[in-house]
């Protein structure tokens, strides 16, 4: 699977959606095409993102 994630990274490092009324305006301002974003988003999948809590039996948690 080859994902061109550069467009997302460029967007994330240069713009905030909070400055625009919608995503379309944001993409227009950056010159990134909707297709480039759509191609990447097609692979979007949430992961389990729990790293806590620690075990109740941990000695430092008594």
């Amino acid at each position, binding site marked *: 699977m080859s*994902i061109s*994630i*550069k467009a*997302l*990274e*460029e*967007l*994330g*490092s240069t*713009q*905030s*959606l*909070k400055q625009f009324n919608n*995503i379309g305006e*944001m993409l227009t301002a950056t010159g990134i095409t909707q297709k480039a*974003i759509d191609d*990447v*988003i097609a*692979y*979007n*999948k*949430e*992961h*389990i*993102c*729990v*790293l*806590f*809590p*620690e*075990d*109740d039996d941990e000695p430092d948690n008594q």
Partner: protein
Amino acid sequence: MKHKGKLVNVGLGMTLGAHITPISRNYIEKADVVFVAASNNLVEHWVKEMNPDVRSLQKYYQEGISRMKTYRKMVEAILSEVRLGKNVCGAFYGHPGVFAWAPHESIRQAKAEGFQAHMEPGISAEDCLYADLGIDPGRFGCTHLEASQFMFRNKSIDSTSYLILWQVGIAGDKSLSKFSTPKEYKKVLVDILLKTYPADFKIILYECAVLPIEHTFIKEINVSDLQDTAISLKTTVVFPPLHKTTLNDDIIKQVEKLK
């Protein structure tokens, strides 16, 4: 004398491309091997573009198995490479040291075994929450608690400050083996909260953006509606201060006498 292997655990921040610090990126790029725990597979792919040997920690999660086993496997995977003398980087979403057992534990164990190990901070969900909700934790004070810990450990609520509950989506999971808990579990949590807050007290559900094209999720609900509301693993619940603080006249007088 320190052994040759090294470990640094770094934060990726919350939003892809926006939050990673220069030093964290540098450690990822220069490491012999990178272990990544990301909240999204696009974030994981992003990290894989920074280094040719990036290994996902996602495979260790398994519903029905205690997450403590998962966390210990993560620590062991990281340390086994450090013991081989490699320059190892753990890249964790958000801040590697906030609500995160494995990053702290891997550093503790690496140091105990004589290896050089340290942590580089990242932008956490807490940091994003302050910015997105316009909360300054210094104004009224702010208590952060993991929801299950709050339920199981007789934690008291300071109703004059903010209360922020994390991982409400798995509130009440004593087994540490679930990725969500049903409404009955959340009802137990709500019953505890209703001892302090009125049923119609407004609280805020919050999720920060993981991708730059995502909106921040902010929703206001009543405390009593919490058990019937869809809560994901990423949702944080914010309780604004309920009561005003009062002055401690005795202490003020005591300090004034010191002038």
